């Protein structure tokens, strides 16, 4: 059966767009649930809805792990939908990744609700303590299986990207624009690969390496759970865990960048995000630089080799500078004097670029060792990654989702929808800023109670109010998106 064609549907990608919509709506629905749990934690610190520490730490573990995995699902869905207009992606692999990921989140939920509360980075050997730490062994096992399933989902999705992109361009090297780069910016073909496709290929490869890092982190814990080994090196395991965790989180924002490359130009007077030698080179450099910043999580592990700590600084700052100079700066000059259309997706996508920089400033300060001494494991860290997510990857993903639905259903949004997008941004900013202030005052992260003298109680109250603003904005956007789903779904099935 053929489908109608438009900017998203090409007559043959209806199946992929449908699975992408399933990714997006599942992501949005679970984002609401986990977001509400996040708000509960802030309300607890504000003294409004106190959680006992048993539940605080369980909810914290569920909120963190679930958000990392489900936000990735949503962004992966949006990327699949956008790329599928030009790239033949395997719907079978995408469905496989979806089922694995949702099963992974279900296992994580079962494990944490069953008592497991070691935090999403579950530093070895804490998860292995089971009853001694306050949870039954089955809940640890369920949580670890959840992580394993999410890693396998990333493997399936990365393969879907790599197969589709290498088929389109003839090889992985061509999809990475190597002929274009090696020929000094010239190509025998009319056009080099689109920047979104080069970055998509790089992220597919990064996904494969990240899965290996995840396997390296999980294998010793499974081996110990099954009694095959009695212990493992704590520092090495910590390195594996942060290499996996930090890279998964980073992949989310870079996948969001893929969305920006293809979506923002549609609102910027028909300009086209060009593949230049610089942008193609930087997308390739990401293959290395994405793995370098993770040691900044281990600055306070003085036993870590000092060279690794230096690499952590260089990697963190280089990554930030490349993102700023290529993607964010590229977005700024793409819209400059462009006749920009101010629509709901524009507001959210531009907020995503601004928020990436806003969170990046906090991250760069923390990535310097002297500052890390007073910010590490305080709410400052929580501030920077919430900014990256809420005002970075998530904002871009919801903006792109809005674009997809309005295009598919063929109807424009209202002024109220644009107001809702602004509410999301303003609420999100207030929320994140309170985390930064609390972190600067020395409030530890992953703490069931506010510490006196840090001002955390008042800051959490203000943060909660900000979340309410954000929630009101997201509620209106969710209403629009829900109202448009039926028509969008049918559009993908219409015979052409």
């Amino acid at each position, binding site marked *: 059966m053929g489908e109608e064609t438009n900017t998203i549907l090409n007559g043959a990608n209806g199946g992929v767009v449908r699975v992408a919509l399933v990714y997006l709506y599942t992501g949005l629905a679970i984002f609401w649930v986990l977001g509400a749990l996040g708000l509960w934690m802030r309300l607890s610190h504000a003294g409004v809805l106190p959680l006992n520490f048993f539940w605080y730490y369980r909810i914290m573990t569920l909120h963190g792990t679930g958000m990392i995995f489900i936000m990735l699902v949503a962004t992966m869905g949006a990327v699949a939908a956008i790329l599928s207009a030009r790239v033949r992606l395997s719907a079978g692999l995408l469905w496989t990744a979806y089922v694995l990921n949702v099963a992974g989140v279900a296992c994580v939920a079962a494990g944490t609700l069953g008592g497991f509360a070691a935090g999403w980075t579950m530093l070895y050997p*804490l998860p292995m303590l089971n009853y001694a730490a306050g949870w039954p062994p089955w809940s640890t096992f369920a949580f670890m299986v959840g992580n394993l399933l999410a890693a396998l989902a990333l493997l399936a999705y990365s393969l879907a990207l790599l197969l589709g992109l290498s088929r389109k361009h003839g090889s992985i090297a061509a999809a990475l624009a190597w002929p274009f780069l090696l020929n000094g910016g010239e190509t025998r073909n009319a056009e080099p690969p689109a920047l979104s496709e080069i970055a998509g290929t790089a992220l597919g490869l990064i996904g494969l390496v990240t899965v290996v890092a995840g396997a390296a982190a999980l294998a010793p814990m499974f081996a110990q759970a099954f009694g095959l080994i009695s212990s493992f090196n704590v520092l090495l395991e910590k390195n594996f865990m942060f290499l996996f965790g930090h890279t998964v989180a980073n992949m989310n924002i870079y996948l969001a960048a893929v969305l920006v490359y293809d979506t923002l130009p549609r609102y910027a007077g028909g300009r086209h995000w060009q593949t230049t030698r610089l942008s193609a080179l930087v997308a390739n450099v990401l293959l290395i630089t994405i793995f370098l910043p993770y040691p900044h999580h281990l600055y306070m592990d*003085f036993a870590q080799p000092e060279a690794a700590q230096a690499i952590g600084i260089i990697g963190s700052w280089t990554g930030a500078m490349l993102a700023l*100079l290529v993607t964010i*700066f590229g977005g700024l*000059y*793409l819209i400059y004097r462009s006749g920009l259309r101010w629509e709901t997706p524009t507001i959210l996508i531009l907020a995503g670029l601004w928020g990436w920089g806003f969170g990046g400033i906090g991250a760069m300060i923390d990535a310097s060792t002297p500052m890390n001494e*007073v910010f590490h494991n305080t709410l400052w860290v929580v501030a920077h990654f919430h900014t990256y997510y809420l005002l970075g990857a998530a904002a871009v993903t919801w903006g792109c989702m809005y674009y997809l639905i309005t295009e598919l259903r063929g109807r424009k949004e209202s002024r109220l929808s644009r107001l809702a997008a602004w509410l999301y941004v303003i609420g999100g900013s207030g929320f994140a800023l309170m985390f930064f202030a609390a972190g600067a*005052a020395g409030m*530890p992260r992953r703490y069931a109670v506010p510490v006196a003298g840090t001002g955390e109680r008042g800051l959490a109250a203000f943060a909660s109010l900000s979340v309410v603003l954000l929630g009101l904005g997201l509620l209106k956007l969710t209403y629009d998106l829900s109202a448009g789903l039926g028509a969008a779904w049918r559009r993908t099935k219409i015979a052409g």
Partner: protein
Amino acid sequence: MSKASIGFALFVLLSVVWTLIWAFVLVRSGPPTLTYAAVAKRAAAIRVWLFWTFGSVLFVLFVLSVYFFPYRAFAMRRMGRPQLKVEVVGKMWTWEIHPDSIPAHTMVEFDVTAGNINHGFGIYSPAGRLINQVQAMPGYTNQLVTSFDQPGKYTVRCLEYCSLGHHLMVSSFEVTPKKGGK
């Protein structure tokens, strides 16, 4: 002004500048009075300038960061050899700190380790500000070299999540006025 306050002030300042840059571009995003090629040409020049400016600033900051590394060899090069050793062991969910009384203006080395899981040895000043920290890891001894100017009670909090009793893992040590000092 504490290091954390300077960090926060810098963050606010840079965030305001960042937002103003966005405001500048957004108010000029409307009428398409310039072709993309013309904008791209100007942007390329600005990008080169930004690259060298940021690159130079970050290089200087990198050198400073390495100079101020908190690790033992770097700390001793800056501050001299420790005159006192304090043994610290983090256990679920208590701290063992020996001795728990330290003279002010004395180079002290905290030898920090942990019983069976990771903890974080976070030192809060008598005014309640986080002033220093180091991880406590089983199987490793992390050496934190520092000194205290201000006498008083310093609170120790666990800064690495260690399950249900994490927030209860609070202890303290005393910094006493140096004999013959003020």
